[in-house]
C-alpha cells in the first residue's frame, strides 16, 4: 500500500521536500513509517526534532491524519493515507 508523508511549514526545509510517497506491505503500522523516516531522513533531521536512538520525533512535532493526532506506534497504516507532520512551537 502507498502512504504519503507531508512535511508542513518549516519542516519542509528539514525534510528537504514537502511530499514523500512510501510503499508498505499490508498490516504495516505507524512504527513502520517511523522506521522508514529514520532510514531516509535521520541524517537530515535536527536532533531537536528526531530521536535517532529511539526512532521517534521529539517534543515539538505532531503527526496527524484525517484531522486526528497519530500517537500510537501500533496504529495501522491505510492505503492512500496522507500523514501530515507539523513542527509546533507552542510557547509558554
Amino acid at each position: 500500500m502507498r502512504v504519503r508523508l507531508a512535511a508542513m511549514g518549516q519542516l519542509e526545509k528539514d525534510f528537504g521536500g514537502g511530499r514523500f510517497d512510501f510503499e508498505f506491505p499490508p498490516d504495516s503500522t505507524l512504527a513502520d513509517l517511523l522506521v522508514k523516516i529514520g532510514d531516509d531522513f535521520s541524517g537530515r533531521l535536527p536532533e531537536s526534532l528526531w530521536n535517532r536512538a529511539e526512532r521517534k520525533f521529539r517534543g515539538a512535532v505532531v503527526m496527524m491524519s484525517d484531522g486526528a493526532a497519530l500517537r500510537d506506534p501500533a496504529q495501522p497504516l491505510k492505503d492512500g493515507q496522507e500523514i501530515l507532520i507539523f513542527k509546533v512551537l507552542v510557547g509558554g
Partner: protein
Amino acid sequence: MSDTLGGYAGKCLHLDLSVPSGRTEDLDPEILRDYLGGTGYAARILYDGQKPGIDPLSPEAMLVVSTGPLTLNAVPGGGSVELCFKSPLTGGWGESRAGSDFGPDLRRAGFDHVVIRGRAPRPVYVVIRDGKAEFRPAEHLAGKLVSEKLAMIRRELPDGRFSIGCIGPGGENEVAFAGVQFGDRAAGRAGAGAVLGSKNLLAIAVEGRNEVVAAKPAELKELLRTYFTQLRSNPVSIGFHDNGTVGDLAANDEKGDWPTKNWQSNSWGKGAVLLDSFVRRNFIKPYPCYRGCTISCGRKVRVPDGAYATVEHGGAEYESISCFTAYVQNEDMDAAVHCSHLCNEYGVDTISAGAVIAFALECAEAGSLAASDIAGLDLSWGNSKVLPRLVRMIALREGIGAVLADGVRAAAARIGKGSEAFAVHVKGLEGPAHDPRSGKSLAVSYGTGNRGMCHIHPAEAMAWDSGKMDWGLCKHGLPDPNGVDRWDEPGKGSAAKLIQDGLNLPDILGTCKFFMYAGIGVDELAAMLSLITGRDIGPAELLAVSERVINLQRLFNLREGFTAADDLLPARVCAVPSFGRYAGTAECGISDFPGMLREYYEARGWDAGTGIPTDATLKRIGLRR
C-alpha cells in the same frame, strides 16, 4: 448593569482589610465600554484609585483580582484569573495571570472584580460565597507551605466546591517576586504574593452557584461547538496537549531561543537530552488547569526517587524548567522538577527565582560576593545540590537569600562590584526563558512590555518572526511571517505594536492566551464577546480597546517615574553569544535596538524621544489621563 450588557456578574467587591469590611458596587458602564474587563478594567481602577508613588507593600496599596467577560468555563481558555497591582519588584504596573477555576467561580459568586486594600492586624483569609464575603482568622496557616494551607482551608470549608488562591511563605515574607498559587497554577510574576502578604491576607476562597448568563446563549452554544470542533484538529492544540510547554526545550535550544548561563548564550546544546530525561522519568500525564479545558497543556510530574524525590504534582512548565537548567547550567532534570515544585510550595515565581540564582552564581564566579556573604555555599555553575537550598533561603529571606529575594535589580544595587552587568531585567522584572536573539520582534516587546521583561504579557513576539505564527493578525495588518527574516531589525518595531495589541486581548477578556495560538484569534474573540455581551463588538474595536489599555498602563508607569530609559534592554541580551550554537553569529546580535524602539514609538504615536503618548494619540484612542 446586567440590564444593559450581558456577560458580566455586574458587581465589584471592595474589601478593606484594615477595618475589616466589604462593600459592593455596580460595574461602571463607561469603563466597561472602553476597557471591557480583566487587566483593562483593573488598570482604570488602579490608575484612578491609587495614589502615585505609594509603597506597593503599604496598606493603601490596592490589588485587583480581575476577570473578563469571557471568563467562563464554557469558553475556550475561559478558566482564567488576573491579579493587577503596583509591583513591589518593579515599582510599576504589575499584572499576573493563572489558569484556574477561580475566575469563573468568582463570577458565579457574583463578582467580576475584587479590590483589596488595607492591612489586617493579624493573618486572615477571605471566603467569598454567593455575593457575600467573610473574613476568617488565619494565624494557624502562617508559615505553612501552599499545599498545607490549601488542605487546611479545604477542611475548614467542607461544604461546596471552593476555588482557592493562596500565598506561601515567600509571600508572607514579602519576597518581591512572590506569587499567588491557584492549586498547582501560579500567578507567579511581579510580586502579587508579596502584596497580599503585606496585607496579612493569606488566601481567598470563592464559591458560587449563579452562572453568568450570555446575552445570546443559543447562538453562543452553536459558535462554541464550531470552535471546539476546530480545536480538536488543530496541530497547535494537539501539540500543547501532547508535549506541554516543556516540549519546546529541544527546539528552542536549536533555534537560539533558550537563554543559557545567565544569558551569556542563547543555546546550550543539551535541550534534547534534558527533554528525553523528562519524558522518561518525570512526566506522568497531561492535565487541564480548569474544568472544560480541551488543550490540557499542564503536566502531572514527579521525581520517583533519589535526592530530589518529589510527589506527583502539576508543574514543570517550560519556563520553570529552563530557569532551573539552562540558566544555571544544571544538567539534572530531577533537580529542576524538584525546584519548580519547591517554588510553588513556597510561593515564589519560578522564573525570577531561577534568574536571581543564575545572577548569584555569576556574582560568585566573578568575585562580587564575599565568602561571608555566601556562608559556605558552593555557588558553582551546574551545582544542582545548591539550587533547592537557595530557593528555601530566598523564600525565608535567610542569609544571601534575603538579598536575592528583592530581585536582581535590587540585589545588584546592594552588591555592587560590577554585578549590575549580570542583572538581566527590564524595569526590574527578570527575563524569562525566551531569547530575542532568536527573533528580534521579541526584543521590542521585552523593552516595552508594561510589566517589564516578559514573554507572555503581552506577547512572545518571536513566535511571529522566528516561529512563523500570526494569531490571525495578518488580516489586521501584521505582515505574513513567512516573508520575514527572524534576524532583520527594520519592521520589527511596528510589528511588535500590533502583536502586543492582539495578544493583550486574552488578559483583558479573561481567557488563556494559548488558545490564540490554536486558532481562537481576534475575530473569534470578537464573535464570542458579541454573543456574550449582546453588543456587536468587531475585531477593530477590540484591538482599539487593547491599545487603550496598553497606553493606560504606560501612563501608570510614567506616573511612577519610569522613562524611555526603562525601555532599553540589558547589553548582554543584545550581544552576540559568547558560546553555543550561535557563537560568533553576528546577525543574531541586536545591533540597533534604539532604532527598533523609535519605530515602535512611532507606531504607537508616542513621542520619539521620551516615549510618552502624545496628546494627539490620547485623543485618537479616547484615553483620559
